[in-house]
């Protein structure tokens, strides 16, 4: 036998083993973090299941999760005294199905394995002192309860946050689930509960607040307005759009109709006040154009996964491709005509392929109220050691600068106008400055169904608003512009009342 073919086979085998070595590096080094964070990875959880673990409490001291001593193989079990109320935020720790929520993202803090917690207990010089951490949420139990009561058994979500810090004050998604069976030491119980939840069609395991996205409908008009104001193609007063019952974009014969066939028009302030489809669609498609619309949407955090301390938040979407330029800009059509200008007209009023999470829309309202700065949303305020001393505090930070302060002021004026004299009058509150925007995202006409939206901010005269809210009620009967205000407005109003009643 010659050496030559043997060399070839050797080279082939060597290459095969090189491929194995490369893939081994990929799995064990480059993808390792990603694999460890995979939601179906239960290894870390199982290792931590029998360890002592600190509680999770709300900012007003209600215990959301705690460890109790039980008989059984592990001796410890996680208990969630509030049942389904915080299931999507605090999550669960299950031996068989893994962990989710803050239980997952703050696992190291709860089990006391962060350097800060280990050092702080070292300083106590107490032999075998517990190093577990207590995680304090930014959520307020009273607001969370109001959100749950108000939404009732309708599927949807309520998000309330502080525009100044990004701290989430309430975050409710219905339907929710009871995390207690999932935390059972008995694997069969946990698995059966999990399987039953997976089988439900309305998907109670998934938080609608930040893991699902919906047509934002007319609430998106504030972003179209922001694009117009930022790029300088319009002010609140100029130009004035004709009073019509619909708008037909270039390249199509299908008009975008106003709700109920009503006629509307006027300047930007009036368009927003009446939530006028024809004018806003024309503004976005013909004056603002694709580049500025995409830029404005992305400045408000669209197409980016929000940095959020609960795992699994999804990016809101705004389409970025409108084809090539067909007609150069003219004085009549300053944005020019693109292959997909008709889609841009739809997108400008929050239809087409635009979709947003309730968390994202709450952040939109918050950024406008906070001078254009969108703060990083978070649900954890601080981590305390067993002595109750804070060892790490969540720093406020700005995620995106959505618009400059001048444009933010104009948008703020427009949203206040919507509440004082427009479609959002339901949230008017004496003694407070409240701004808002309704949204009714039509899903179909037979039977008429739509997502009812309301976004709002509220605060005292002369101060930055303290509260920003997004309410989504999914798949409601009816499809008139009033739907958003009628269905979702009162929920926002109840949150505002609850927040400001004592302070």
């Amino acid at each position, binding site marked *: *036998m010659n050496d030559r073919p*043997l060399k070839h086979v050797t080279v082939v*085998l060597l290459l*095969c083993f090189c491929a194995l*070595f490369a893939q*081994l*590096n990929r799995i064990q080094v480059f993808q390792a973090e990603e694999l460890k964070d*995979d939601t*179906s*990875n239960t290894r870390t959880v199982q290792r931590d299941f029998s360890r002592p673990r600190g509680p999770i409490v709300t900012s007003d001291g209600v215990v959301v999760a705690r460890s109790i001593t039980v008989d059984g193989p592990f001796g410890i079990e996680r208990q969630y005294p509030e049942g389904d109320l915080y299931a999507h935020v605090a999550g669960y720790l299950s031996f068989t199905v893994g962990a989710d929520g803050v239980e997952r993202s703050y696992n190291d803090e709860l089990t006391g394995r962060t350097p800060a917690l280990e050092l702080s207990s070292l300083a106590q010089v107490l032999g075998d002192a517990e190093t577990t951490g207590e995680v304090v949420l930014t959520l307020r139990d009273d607001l969370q309860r109001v959100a749950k009561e108000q939404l009732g058994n309708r599927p949807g979500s309520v998000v309330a946050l502080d525009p100044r810090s990004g701290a989430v004050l309430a975050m409710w998604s219905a339907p929710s689930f009871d995390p207690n069976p999932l935390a059972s030491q008995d694997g069969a119980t946990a698995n059966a509960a999990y399987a039953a939840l997976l089988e439900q069609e309305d998907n109670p395991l998934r938080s609608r607040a930040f893991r699902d996205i919906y047509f934002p409908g007319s609430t998106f008009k504030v972003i179209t307005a922001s694009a117009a104001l930022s790029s300088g193609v319009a002010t609140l007063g100029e130009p004035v759009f004709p009073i019509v019952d619909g708008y037909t974009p270039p390249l199509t014969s299908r008009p975008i109709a106003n709700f109920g066939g009503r006629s509307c028009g006027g300047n930007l302030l009036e368009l927003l006040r009446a939530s006028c489809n024809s004018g806003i669609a024309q503004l976005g498609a013909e004056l603002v154009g694709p580049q500025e619309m995409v830029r404005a949407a992305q400045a408000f955090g669209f197409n980016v996964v929000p940095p959020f301390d609960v795992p699994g938040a999804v990016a809101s979407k705004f389409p970025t491709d409108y084809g090539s330029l067909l007609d150069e800009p003219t004085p009549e059509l300053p944005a020019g005509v693109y292959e997909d200008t008709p889609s841009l007209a739809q997108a400008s009023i929050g239809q087409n392929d635009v979709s947003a999470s309730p968390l994202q829309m709450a952040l939109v309202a918050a950024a406008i109220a906070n001078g254009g700065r969108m703060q990083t949303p978070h649900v954890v305020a601080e981590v305390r050691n067993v002595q109750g001393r804070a060892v790490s505090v969540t720093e406020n930070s700005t995620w995106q600068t959505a618009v400059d302060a001048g444009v933010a002021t104009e948008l703020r004026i427009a949203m206040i106008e919507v509440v004082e004299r427009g479609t959002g009058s339901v949230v008017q509150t004496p003694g407070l400055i409240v701004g808002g925007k309704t949204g009714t995202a039509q899903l179909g006409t037979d039977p008429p169904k739509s997502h009812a939206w309301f976004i709002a901010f509220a605060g005292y005269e002369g101060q930055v608003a303290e509260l920003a809210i997004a309410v989504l009620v999914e798949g409601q009967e009816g499809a008139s512009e009033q739907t958003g205000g009628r269905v979702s407005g009162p929920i926002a109003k109840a949150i505002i009342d609850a927040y400001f009643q004592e302070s």
Partner: protein
Amino acid sequence: MRPRTVELGLLLLASIVTAGAYGLTSLGRAASLPADIVPFLGIVLALLLLAHVVVRRFAPGADGLLLPIASFLNGLGYVMIARLDPSLADSQSAWTFIGLLGFTATLVFLPDMRRLAEYRYSLALLGVTLLLLPLLPGIGKEINGAKIWLRVGAFSIQPGEFAKIVLAAFLAGYLVEKRELLASTAYRFGPFSLPNPKYFGPLLMAWSVALIVMVAERDLGSSLLFFTLFVVMLYLATERVAYVFAGLLMFAGGAYASFRMFDHVQKRVDIWLHPFEDPKGAGYQIVEASFALADGGISGTGLGLGTPSKIPVAPTDMIFAAIGEELGLIGATALLIAFLLFIGAGFRVARLAASPFEALLAAGLTALIGFQAFVIIAGVLRVLPLTGVTLPFVSYGGSSLISNYIVLAILIRISDRSSRQDQLRAT
């Protein structure tokens, strides 16, 4: 240094590594050294010294690397199996002992491998019979959907593991006899020269054997290995790339047809392409293996400190993932290198072999071990669809371990004869 001295030194090292790993595993799990650590080290040393003495007595001139590498793989595998499932530890040590008996018997009773060439057609018959035995009703047995088992008293054995060796010996004999014909050129198409089509016969036979194994016994891994073995040996004997291409084409055809025809093949491919789509169902095994490896990272969790028992079928198909978890990238890479060293040593035996038959047999068996290690590790790492074959010397399993030790003995026997030929020539 003389090969036996090298072998003895490396064997001592392998037993220290094995006993050290055994002790560390226990330290990791129970924070104490196992009570039987001293007897354990004694038994490991005794077994390896026994093998060494057998080689020294019956094949004194043989290569000194093969046995230590095999012992290292076997030792590490044993420690991991005992750690994963203590109930398998006793039987794995029994299999190791029987494997070493098989090793000894091969060296004692087969002093000259060329004898095998004389019985090549009987070997072909024996190989095919071994392969088809599990299909006979009554003695055949189906485990996890694969009909590759034979019930013998309280044990289950996989005759296919032994069929591989027998068929490799047949092929070596057949190819050495016919290689002039097989390598002749009948047609030319530009730069390509093709042999006479009738000499594609052996390839067709390989293909049908592979197909039978896959279709009737539903054993994808062995089917792939048989076919690879045949194509590699055909290429080694004839140097004809045409056979390799024809082999690849036939394999692609067979693979595609079986993909279309059989659910279980489709399912395997589907899991391979999208393991994370059903991480709790179909993809569970492979996804857990990846999680285990990720947990291990570069340096591993440490022996006894990981949770490798979460990986389904860890002691057999998935043992590489279990080792990768507890010993990390470093340990898993050491394992890959050990296999490469074994392949290198085996091919050197083939290169130096005293006769063409022995050269081809050594090369074929070495390639078989090499490709088998590749196929199963590639399955665990998602490089290829997962097929259930054992990791040679490492995985749990009697038939596999015994047949691997027989392969080892054949390589050592061939190596010994070539060194004696050299000595004859030198003097």
